[in-house]
């Protein structure tokens, strides 16, 4: 089984993040850029399937040249190789264009299974698996908290508001995972050393046969008109409990008509 794992580099969600004032894109210069957390769960899932069923795991990233750092980190967990789609024309791409590029790259890899995170911590648009599946004409099983592989049959369990659903599809298919699915491994020292020598192929838009006018700012299907910092909330009254904290809390809630 050939598994492609989608890995996106994002600004660390635990630190301050900004949009650039010149072109409204993510300010990567000032950020600590890391692997999108959910994608580590996708990598782990791919590796555990490989351990059980054999085959190959390929990391696929679309992103600027600095994303190689995250790719090497992903490889240090255990995947066999990586493809990095990098092209200056991609700067400013919307989700629709991103899915076009990723689908083209996946098409060249002849994958049986594509695993990705359920959402990224920066854009959080949660659309990539279905967009890619739609383009490739294959199934999307999204939001998995459990994935089992039986020959060419994939079965997931996904949480819903009412409970959970069990959904199946045949390969090839895209599966997106939540962080409830597994516990990602830490790269070992050996893994980190090995990652430096693993094949990492860089592809341009031309290599994928995608026209530059369909991506980046030129091909964007939406635009940021303006952005601003949300004014910080004004902290209100804070009381130390000296025996009547609960009563004071209810007094406040009642003054605001909540009780």
């Amino acid at each position: 089984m050939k598994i492609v794992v989608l890995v996106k580099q994002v600004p660390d969600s635990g630190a301050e993040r900004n949009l650039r004032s010149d072109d409204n894109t993510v300010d990567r210069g000032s950020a600590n850029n890391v692997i999108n957390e959910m994608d580590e769960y996708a990598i782990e899932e791919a590796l555990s399937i490989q351990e059980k069923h054999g085959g190959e795991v390929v990391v696929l990233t679309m992103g600027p040249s600095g994303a190689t750092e995250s790719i090497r980190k992903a490889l240090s967990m255990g995947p066999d190789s990586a493809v990095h789609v990098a092209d200056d024309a991609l700067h400013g791409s919307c989700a629709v264009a991103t899915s076009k590029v990723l689908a083209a790259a996946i098409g060249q890899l002849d994958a049986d299974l594509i695993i990705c995170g359920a959402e990224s911590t920066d854009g959080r648009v949660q659309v990539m698996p279905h967009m890619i599946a739609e383009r490739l004409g294959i199934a999307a099983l999204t939001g998995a908290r459990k994935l089992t592989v039986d020959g060419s049959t994939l079965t997931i369990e996904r949480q819903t508001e009412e409970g959970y659903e069990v959904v199946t599809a045949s390969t090839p298919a895209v599966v997106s995972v939540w962080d409830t699915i597994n516990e990602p491994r830490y790269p070992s020292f050996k893994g980190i050393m090995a990652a430096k020598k693993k094949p990492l192929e860089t592809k341009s838009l031309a290599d994928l046969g995608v026209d530059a006018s369909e991506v980046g700012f030129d091909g964007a299907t939406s635009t940021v008109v303006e952005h601003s910092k949300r004014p910080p909330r004004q902290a209100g009254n804070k009381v130390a409990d000296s025996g009547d904290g609960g009563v004071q809390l209810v007094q406040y809630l009642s003054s605001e008509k909540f009780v």
Partner: protein
Amino acid sequence: MAEVLVVVEASQAGVKKVTLELLTIARELGEPSAVVLGGPGAAAAMSDKLGEYGAQKIYAAESEEIDGHLVAPKATVLANLVTSVSPAAVLLASSQEGKEIAARLAVKLDNGILTDAVGLDADGTATQVVFAGQTIVKSKVTKGIPLVTIRPNSVTPTPAAASPAVENLTVELTDKDKLAQVVNRVAEQKGSRPELTEASIVVSGGRGVGSGDNFKLVEELADLMGAAVGASRAAVDSGFYPHQFQVGQTGKTVSPQLYVALGISGAIQHRAGMQTSKTIVAVNKDEEAPIFELTDFGVVGDLFKVVPQAVEEIRKRKG
């Protein structure tokens, strides 16, 4: 006036509140038409409610097949409808399903998509709150029509009575729409609490709650206030409360009138899911806890003393 399509979301209890909010917003952009994508009989059960909130027309695509294959069939039906009626905009809830239908629709129609809007102007400009609630973005679809998913609790739903006619759509699916097969749906005990993202009050517990058993205290306060229960990731990871109730960056985003944080420190990833709540109160024994930067009212103290006292006080007031 131009037609605006609103994709209806429903639960066992009927039309979801977020759909009524979408109808309210849609009226600013044109004449709302509700689109029901569901099993047989789905539209009839909901038409009164949809009319009450201003739906001028109801498109009903009803078929067993729509329900059993995740979102692909719904996107196909919707794409056909968009092509035939050329609406001014398409609005969906910013739920997993809403975003996923919109995702496929965007690709089918080669149309832009904006997700997680908290507001939408008459000219189609959407407001998004991003980066853990710290940045406000105004954005527009520049290719095709505004295709926007909107977060629950973004506006107050207001009635505007109409008496919509129901128009049945033919559901024609291809094999490609049926690749994913739902083989089992397991209902879990839900109780009578409101849904987390739609609730007007959310009471959440964190690691400070200490155990799954102690979460009964959080539930008790929530039930007295008619609130939904939420949890921090630390509480979920410690096994105190199920994952579907996690609030934050990798959980649900809530925007209630009131958010009550009990034993939650207020990490940036938690804030990502609750920062836009109208009023925030917290109980935390650490007076330096960052959650107090957000609170309209904070109690520095032991939640095991403060919360039972608050519960008792509310009971007393209720008489």
